């Protein structure tokens, strides 16, 4: 409980710091704070709205207070471009990002765990000599490039899958649930999810492999062999089961990291997610939207780190005892 509170306080502290840094980045820019966001298309009216929104006629302290209190109430301001509250715009695309992230992580972790366990079991064989460099190569490949190659081949050359977006234009659905379970949505999801999964599988794979190698050295594995248990029982029931826990923690961390890391994949596949929203907002100088999207991505990252830590800590007593020797 003490740990929980301490860790919770740390999470709030990190969130507050990031928000503050963002606030001051904006205020300490050379020239008037609005300079970067006002171009010739910004109307007089919009400028006035901006000044009011950010309280630019007030002192820096008051502005900061306003920013924080608005933030606490979930008010991230108005998007210049969409002319809607930022929160609304962000929440509209947020489910798409979560679905993309979760589906690719799931594929990546299932594959990574199995392949990692297999590579550990085949230690020193040609499979390992060939497999590890291959995995490192997938981690070295830029996601967006992988996406481009897939798009060119599967979408443009073979015509199997759509080339972008989350739904065909003009498609209508009775509910959000109907939308995301439709064949149309899933066929749009396939390529970006696979691209991301290929990039993401390296981490669980390497982690699982090194955990497995450690576990395989344990006395209880020797005992399992002495019991005459089948290879399957030794590898799956005893070794893999023990090696899995740190990988599960990495999964939680992965959700946090991937929501922000999706940026390029979402862009390549024109996937209407929060990463692409951020890119477009920055490109269009839609400052409140950029700030809101960034804060949202940060919040997901920090909260998932928190959850991962807490889960691990809850399971820790058993892990700690098991690790001691």
């Amino acid at each position, binding site marked *: 409980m003490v740990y929980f509170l301490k860790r919770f306080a740390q999470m709030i502290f990190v*969130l507050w710091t990031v928000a503050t840094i963002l606030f001051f*980045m904006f205020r300490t820019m050379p020239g008037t704070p609005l300079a970067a966001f006002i171009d010739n298309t910004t109307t007089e009216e919009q400028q006035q709205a901006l000044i009011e929104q950010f309280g630019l006629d007030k002192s820096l302290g008051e502005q900061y207070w306003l920013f924080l209190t608005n933030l606490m109430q979930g008010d991230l301001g108005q998007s210049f471009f969409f002319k809607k509250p930022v929160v609304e715009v962000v929440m509209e695309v947020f489910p798409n990002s979560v679905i993309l992230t979760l589906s690719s992580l799931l594929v990546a972790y299932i594959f990574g765990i199995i392949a990692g366990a297999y590579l550990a079991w085949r230690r020193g064989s040609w499979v390992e000599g060939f497999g590890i460099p291959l995995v490192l190569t997938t981690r070295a490949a830029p996601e967006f490039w992988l996406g481009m190659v897939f798009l060119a081949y599967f979408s443009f050359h073979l015509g199997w899958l759509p080339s972008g977006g989350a739904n065909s234009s003009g498609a209508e659905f009775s509910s959000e649930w109907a939308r995301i379970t439709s064949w149309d949505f899933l066929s749009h999801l396939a390529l970006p999810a696979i691209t991301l999964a290929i990039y993401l599988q390296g981490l669980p794979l390497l982690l699982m492999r090194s955990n497995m190698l450690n576990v395989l050295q344990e006395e209880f594995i020797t005992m399992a062999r002495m019991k005459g248990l089948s290879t399957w029982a030794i590898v799956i029931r005893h070794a893999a089961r023990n090696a899995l826990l740190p990988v599960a923690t990495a999964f939680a961390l992965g959700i946090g990291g991937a929501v922000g890391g999706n*940026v*390029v994949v979402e862009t390549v596949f024109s996937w209407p997610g929060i990463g692409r929203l*951020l890119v477009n907002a*920055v490109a269009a100088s839609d400052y409140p939207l950029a700030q809101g*999207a*960034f804060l949202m991505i940060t919040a997901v990252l920090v909260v998932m780190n928190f959850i991962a830590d807490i889960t691990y800590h809850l399971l820790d007593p058993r892990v700690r005892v098991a690790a001691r020797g």
Partner: protein
Amino acid sequence: MQRADEIALPGRGARVTAGLSRWVKGVTAIPRRDPFAFAGVLLYLIFILVAIFAESLVTHDPREILFDENYDLARNLPPGGDHILGTTFSGRDIYSQLVMGTRGALLVGVTAAVCVVTIGTIIGLIAGFFGGIVDTILMRLADIALGVPFLPFVIVLAAFLNPSQWNVVLGIALLLWPQSARVIRAQVMSLRERAFIEAARVTGAGPWRILFVHIAPNVLSLSFLYASIAVGWAILTEASISFLGFGPSDSVTWGYMLQDAYASQALGREQYYWFVPPGLCIIAVVVAGFFISRGYEEILFPKLKD
């Protein structure tokens, strides 16, 4: 068992050269132990040579818009003849862009790696050596840095600063130092208690002197390990940022080439010769870094092979 008379205080020069010679020995020991790491070193050498002699290797000015003999724009030419890898949608020579891109990639990669590892090493040294409140503050800073989503942060940076490759370097330096700092901090904490440090203290050396003359050389090899990984990260990040359109518009990088190809619908025209080579180059240089760091790690921390 260490006998008391072995606890002597080596001179400053001896310690620094010992640290240096250890990582030189580490680097030169790579090829024998690990063919992949050797391949990595070779790849790096090739890329470095290409970056240095880029001007003499290009066949055209990578930014020049080319025309054919009929004064038509030489756009989307397939590989062959005058253009080894063909031309882009706007009539530029792809091969020449690829060669020039090497320089940009390596420059960003190496600078970012040096920055991040320097920061990480110094913070790790100070936090580990002084401990207490200094350590607490620095480690809380590390928590914050790790709580900031990396790529989005670099994108936001690009919104505030002028589009430049150095945004990537800045972003990496600001956010990625905790990884190396934490490991080096742990290493320093264990070194602090060793006999030779105690000996230095007894002879009246000041804390900063002990830290930078006696301890720092011993973590140098660890810093190098992190640097070899950071180069790859920086190159990947630079490519992503350029691809998203936040890169500098006046220089040619691999990321820029990919963005150009994507924006000019090279995918729909299946111009693989345009967008495949830059990707392969990025993979090659990043994977080379991975291989080197793995081989180097094996030498630094040899695992017991039974």
